[in-house]
């Protein structure tokens, strides 16, 4: 099975975020971008399938600025066989439709049976790209999927947890899947594989090549205008009390008079 994993580097979770000097986006200066969240699960799922379907290959692909290289190397360290960076234009790497077009265009020359991505990216949580790539390629796509397993000679079975219960699905290939969870927790890359990944080749498709292939579709549909951090939350209020009755009384008074939860 040829498995393509679509990954997007996102800021490391411990990063302190700030706006860029022009106020339009996240300031990437000094921020470490990593493979994280659902994308990490997607890589894990791809590797599990590779281990269970002999002859499979995993190819990690990322659309965006140069920092994609770090996330791709992380995927290689985990066990991906190949990696491709598709360069984004200086403006518009955040546009999900442009990302989908660029990825779909690259996939015209990359073999795939299964496209795997996170159910949404760990930063903007839009969840558009996997479905949009599938649409552009004319293949079925499924979101919020867990537990993808090989089924029959050339199909896949998977589950989708919903409010009402767990759905079980089967699909033929090719298809695209936005993953919520693999059947294992994401593995940790071993030290020698990390060192090896530093020297692994990463194929690059530069932006002029992508732009040429996309022709009139190469301009972003959306551009970020403003980036603001949420206002800091006001602090918690501790209630001091001697008896539970006193605590309840004080809490009700605060809810009524300060939080105005009750009239």
């Amino acid at each position, binding site marked *: 099975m040829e498995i393509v994993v679509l990954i997007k580097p996102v800021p490391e979770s411990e990063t302190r975020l700030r706006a860029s000097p022009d106020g339009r986006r996240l300031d990437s200066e000094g921020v*470490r971008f*990593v493979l994280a969240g659902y994308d990490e699960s997607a890589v894990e799922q791809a590797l599990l399938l590779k281990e269970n379907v002999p002859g499979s290959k995993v190819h990690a692909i990322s659309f965006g600025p140069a920092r994609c290289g*770090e996330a791709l*190397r*992380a995927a290689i*360290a985990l066990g991906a066989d190949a990696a491709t960076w598709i360069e984004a234009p200086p403006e518009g790497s955040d546009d999900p439709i442009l990302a989908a077009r660029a990825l779909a265009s690259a996939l015209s020359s990359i073999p795939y049976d299964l496209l795997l991505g996170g159910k949404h990216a760990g930063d903007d949580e839009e969840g558009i790209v996997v479905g949009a790539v599938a649409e552009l390629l004319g293949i079925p796509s499924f979101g919020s999927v867990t537990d993808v397993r090989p089924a029959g000679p050339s199909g896949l079975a998977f589950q989708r947890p919903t409010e009402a219960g767990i759905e079980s699905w089967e699909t033929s290939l090719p298809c695209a899947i936005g993953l919520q969870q693999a059947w294992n927790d994401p593995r*940790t*890359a*071993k*030290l*020698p594989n*990390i*060192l090896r*990944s*530093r020297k692994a080749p990463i194929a690059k498709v530069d932006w002029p090549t992508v732009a040429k292939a996309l022709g009139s579709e190469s301009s972003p549909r959306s551009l970020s205008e403003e980036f603001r951090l949420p206002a800091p939350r006001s602090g918690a209020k501790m209630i001091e009390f001697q008896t539970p009755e006193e605590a309840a009384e004080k809490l009700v008074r605060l809810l009524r008079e300060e939080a105005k939860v009750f009239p």
Partner: protein
Amino acid sequence: MPEFSLTAEQESLRDLARKFARTEMAPKAAECDKSARFPEEIYRKAWELGLMNLNVPTEYGGSGLGALDQCLIVEELAYACGGMTTSIIANCLALEPILLGGSPAQKSRWLTPFCSEYHLASFCLTEPGGGSDAAGLKTRARKDSEEYVLSGEKCFITNGPHASLFTVFATLDPSLRSKGVAAFIVPGDAPGIVRGKDEDKMGHRASSTSTIRLEEVRVSRDQRLGGEHDGFSIAMRTLDQTRTPIGALATGIAQAALDLAARYSLERKTFGKPISEHQAIQIKLANMVQAVRAARLLTWHAAWTIDRGQPGTLESSIAKCYASDAALRVADEAIQIFGGYGYMRDYPVEKLMRDAKLTQIYEGSNEIQRIVTARELLRQYG
């Protein structure tokens, strides 16, 4: 200009160590400390991830890292648990004599099978009669045609109860002092090896330490590292390599103490305000961060010196000594900032002080480090 930023490769090594430390080690640190449990499952996993034989070249199955890379990893591990870190890096200490004194044939014979599976090794230098005066060691090596017979006792041996390989220092002629010492590779199952009980320690309780008695242990000539007079030099050059990671270990403990104390100071209120607003606490925190940063930079500098192929005796002595003193001081102040809670075993800070204390003692006590530092310093003037 010095360059203080890390390469992307170094960042990813540090990420690996941090993830392992925080997800595997930290959750079990308090439990292992309390019950003095040797968490073999964690050590096995450290080996699986390549975090164990850091200094062994990849051609023999190790991770092949330089000094600075090792320090980055060790600091992260020690942030989660000093004791586990001591046991994880004991292999580096025990195998370094083979790296320094072994022939290519000895390296492939002993290191390759050792590194290809989970194994622990121990470095056996210290003896009950004294550790600091290593040239005065009493364990005897007696020549018997093509073999040597080793007898004596080693003490405070990290991973002693579990090791499957020992590097042992023994004297062929005590009257020759340092010139009489030879180094040997001894497999853990050699007849005549008697392991003592696991010592009950103040700190590093997730590590295990024991005596190793050698009762007429026979080793062949090709288990001798270097020449018959090279053992002492191999031991000293080994410690030149491994002292710097002890600086990193101490820095990790100190950083953990600082983080806990700074966070606590923002939460704990006295006299109507967080204690972080009392200047006395601010001054403590300022002194603590100065000590942590200085410890890290001295450690990085020593590692950088060694990575440039220099012995780094002076630099590593300064780094180990400063960082370990800093760790004890910072942990002490962290307890002070926690007040009475800091003294309670249910809070994590008192463990840091107990763990920090060892870093002043082992791999050459700080008194010995100061002797070495002064000797190296004065050499530059004399």
